[in-house]
């Protein structure tokens, strides 16, 4: 067991090292942009999965991103706050909304919860589109400021003029958020969420407040969606209601399901693969949805538990083949 743990730690460390020095070798802005988008999608997919650990599929992530995005932009532009303070506050704004609607929402089972989160996301989008005074209406908000510069004299000065600066920002942000989410999931809280998912009646009979834990999971998941949204608009310097539509929520769901919901690393892998695929498709941009649909169907029919379950599937297939050979011998 210990050897397995140390090899895992070593490979994670190596991965971290590679990620840290990547911008030294990858200098094209377009490629760095893809890396940044991967970062955002990883955070979105992992936070969506956190909600799913309590047994509920949410399609509200786009709306929560939107709430985070506009809150942060407005806090900075109208409230004069620094981006560094606005971003976490934006996450909190999304979380507060999630908790408020969460209490009635989590009473709904299965597909009805999913439906109502879809409606919520759509509602947010329509509000953002209509409330010109607050959100700038369909054209949104432009010229959103960059994060304030961080300088350690003599060492470095990061002013977010180049994409590489944003890359390091999202890298550190994602690492911290993943750490937080993993800490939650591997704690008794995570175990209770999993219990609630497997049987909420049993969990209730044993003293667990199923509804309360579902609201907790929903709130925390939406917090990270809000933070992602805030980062997104400070990176692109523009916020626009159509960036946060139904399609985005379904894409995040896809990252999670294709990567695999059973393990923490699943959504990460899914986000990486599905962010890169459309870029590689390149000239076939119009066919991107076909490719996505094909991948979705392949996974859902042949690898139900996602890409991350592939090693185990292969191992099991090998074992079965070996036992079959033995019985033949």
């Amino acid at each position, binding site marked *: 067991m210990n050897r397995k743990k140390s090899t895992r730690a070593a490979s994670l460390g190596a991965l971290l090292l590679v990620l840290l020095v990547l911008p030294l070798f990858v200098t094209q802005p377009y490629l760095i942009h893809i890396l940044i988008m991967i970062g955002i999608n990883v955070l979105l997919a992992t936070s969506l999965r956190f909600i799913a650990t309590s047994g509920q*599929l949410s399609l509200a992530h786009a709306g929560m991103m939107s709430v985070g995005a506009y809150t942060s932009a407005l806090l900075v532009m109208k409230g004069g706050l620094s981006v560094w303070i606005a971003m976490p506050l934006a996450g909190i704004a999304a979380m507060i909304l999630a908790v408020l609607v969460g209490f*009635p*929402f989590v*009473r*709904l089972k*299965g*597909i*009805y919860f*999913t*439906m*109502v989160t879809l*409606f*919520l996301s*759509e*509602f947010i989008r*329509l*509000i953002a*589109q*209509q409330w010109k005074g607050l959100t700038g209406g369909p054209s949104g908000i432009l010229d959103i400021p960059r994060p304030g510069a961080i300088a350690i004299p003599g060492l470095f000065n990061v002013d977010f003029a180049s994409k590489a600066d944003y890359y390091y920002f999202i890298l550190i942000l994602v690492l911290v958020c993943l750490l937080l989410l993993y800490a939650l999931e591997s704690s008794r809280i995570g175990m209770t969420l999993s219990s609630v998912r497997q049987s909420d009646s049993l969990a209730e009979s044993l003293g667990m407040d199923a509804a309360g834990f579902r609201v907790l999971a929903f709130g925390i998941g939406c917090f990270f969606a809000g933070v992602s949204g805030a980062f997104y608009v400070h990176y692109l310097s523009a916020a626009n209601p159509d960036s946060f539509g*139904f399609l985005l929520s*379904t894409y995040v*769901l*896809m990252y999670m*399901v294709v990567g695999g*919901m059973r393990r923490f690393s699943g959504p990460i892998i899914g986000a990486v693969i599905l962010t890169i695929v459309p870029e590689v498709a390149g000239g076939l941009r*119009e*066919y991107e*949805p*076909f490719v*996505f*649909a094909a991948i*979705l*169907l392949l*996974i*859902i*029919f042949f690898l*139900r538990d996602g890409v991350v379950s592939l090693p185990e599937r292969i191992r099991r297939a090998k074992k079965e083949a070996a036992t079959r050979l033995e019985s033949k011998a």
Partner: protein
Amino acid sequence: MWAQNLLNGLTSGWLYILVALGLTLVLSIVGIVQLAHGEVYMVGAYVVYFFCVVAGLNFFPALLISIVSVALLGVLLERFFLRPFRSDMEGAIITTLALILILQTGIITIAGPGYKDIPSPVEGVLTILGARLSWERLMTIMVGVVLVIALLLFIGKTKVGQAMVAVSEDRDAAALVGINVNKISSVAMFLGCGLAAAAGGMTGPIFNLTPFMGGFALTKGIEVIILGGLGSIPGAIIGGLILGLVEGLITPLVSIQVANIVGLVVIVLILLFRPQGLMGHE
């Protein structure tokens, strides 16, 4: 003036009813929330466009072709993409999302993303008591009424129809008494997609077609069945009429977006506080 709004409301209402009936048939008999139902509606509209505008057929034959071909397409979809996920909600969501992508992108590839128009098969207005009612909309309502009556008769008077009711109430019990649940699911899908295609086809002359019109239809369909009660056919009819009429009469006073927002809020409130809708049983 208000007569026109009333007519518009009734027209939308009957279109919503057709979509919602299809959705509720699939939901209660096939057992899946068919998120791609809006895309089926959209494909129905485009098939009419192709046969009517591109191939030069008359509107009504084109509509008939659309209804039958889309219904058959639905049967195929149910057999291969929906049936395996009857008890797997997450899987069902993913497959229907994949279908949305395929159908939408397919139409975009064939017909392009821009607006298309289907010329109206009937021109002119009927003038009653000073109100000018477009024949187009009256025809839509009439066709809608005929289709719904046909469906009600089918369900009430035929063996297959009764079997459908049985499956919708208790699939296992129905199987136990010898009903071929798979065959009934296919029939339900055939009818449901046919109704959606009919609605799509009749939308064409009134509104523009776009490959993205499916989402709107799905939202309205879901709103109607939540309002009227999931799995309830009378509920879908009453719900559709209410939604259509309210929209027809309220929208001219506010804007269409505000009407949409209010609609969403009402639906969510119903889901939370009276989830069985107006006529459902829970």
